[in-house]
């Protein structure tokens, strides 16, 4: 949050995990599953004067099963939303881009193109 002069304290678990992400048009995109941090090497001691890690991305993927039974899905299965496109953190996380430009919405697009749009009326406006 270096862009702002005023700093806010955010608890990653309370304010980021399991929060709804909306795109620039307020369309729901995903719920945050994981947060990716920078600069920490796994399993190595952290030097005392190292700079604090920063959030690099919000991740989303099939984590529900692993949250219940343990383990974690391979990194390649998780989709990334770059932290740079996050515009606001409130009761939802807002992005400054359209959801359709992100990889994470491929499932929605696939079902829309291959199933829903083929049913008559699928593209019609909701009068």
């Amino acid at each position: 949050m270096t862009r702002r002069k005023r700093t806010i304290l955010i608890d990653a678990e309370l304010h980021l995990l399991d929060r709804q992400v909306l795109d620039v048009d307020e369309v729901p995109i995903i719920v945050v599953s994981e947060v990716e941090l920078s600069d920490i090497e796994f399993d190595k001691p952290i030097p005392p004067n190292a700079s604090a890690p920063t959030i690099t991305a919000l991740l989303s993927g099939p984590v529900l099963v692993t949250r219940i039974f343990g383990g974690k899905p391979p990194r390649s299965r998780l989709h990334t939303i770059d932290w740079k496109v996050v515009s606001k953190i409130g009761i939802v996380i807002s992005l400054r881009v359209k959801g359709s430009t992100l990889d994470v919405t491929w499932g929605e697009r696939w079902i829309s193109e291959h199933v829903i749009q083929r049913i008559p009326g699928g593209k019609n406006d909701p009068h």
Partner: protein
Amino acid sequence: MKKILGLALGILTAIGGFVDIGDMVTNAVVGSRFGLALAWVVPIGVIGICVFAQMSGRVAAVSGRATFEIIRERLGARAGIANLAASFLINLLTLAAEIGGVALALQLASSIAPALWIPVAGFAVWLVVWRVKFSILENVTGMVGLTLIVFAVAVFLLHPNWSDLLTQTLHPRVPRSEAPATYWYYAIGLFGAAMTPYEVFFFSSGAVEEKWSAKDLGQSRVNVLVGFPLGGALSIAIAACAAIVLLPGGIKVTSLSQVVMLVASAGGKLAVAFVLVGIVAATFGAALETTLSSGYTLAQFLGWSWGKFRRPAEAARFHLTMIVCLIIGMGVLATGVDPIAVTEFSVVFSAIALPLTYLPILIVANDPQYMGKYVNGRITNGFGVIYLVIILVASIAAIPLMIISGAGA
């Protein structure tokens, strides 16, 4: 007129909760076995659902977040998914039962076997969910469902012994022919039927569909305060009809046709016509409510785009979920299972799953980050905490009572 139509969301929600296919039969069963000795449960349930729905409606109007988004966010993934699994399954069973209910009601009107009506009913539900505007959907089913008021009229036409009914209500006693565990099992069933979670999912998501904001809070309150008491009154009226006609003869209710007969004996053909229209509208409305709720719960939990206010192509997974659920529901019915038995179980399971849905809403309704100055007042919180206790007790007692009473046998 616009004011009256503005109440449709509350009325449709309440019809789905209080006088759907399972409740119509359960209320008649309760009336025929216990008289009005369980009528006291209904006001407790009505106040409970008013508190619950009003909180969820207020959260939805002020923060724009519907109930299941909040459940995921507050409970986290683990407890959240337990709740999702339970709520989604109950909802799916109820959905199957309601489509069966539409088929049963159409059978009574047409003498065509329900098996033939099931695909028609299922397709009709999908068509409405796919194409019909949300406000038309709720207005038509809600208003036509009001013809069920004929049950209340029937109570008067039956010329009951009023003091007798009053004694049954005010001095409830377990009839000698029934075990206490059975009495309490039905008490929890009635409470669960009043406070079904899908009512709240539907009501709060409907508030988002209708784009309610903080200035619509008054409308939300009126919706709740008119809709649910009306639903509760109808369910007591059904029990009263059964108590007047069937209790003295010791006749047990097993089917929907007996419920219609109650009205027939009071008001003849005209009343039957009303009640059939009402039952079709109410079960159809409940089928819409549960179908939409299946899409709402899954989409909100997983953060998908949802809502009838979007093009189907822009809420693709939401619409696909509903299609799949309708197909599964019809598949369940194709096994020949009795839809009424299905809902009797699902209301008890609703009571078990309720705390996990209720608590997150109670917490968020007190969170100023979401609610700003619209956080719960002292009175609401007083009721909120009292009902938290009642809900917990009902939830814990449900399974033991179910086993002891042999599921109300």
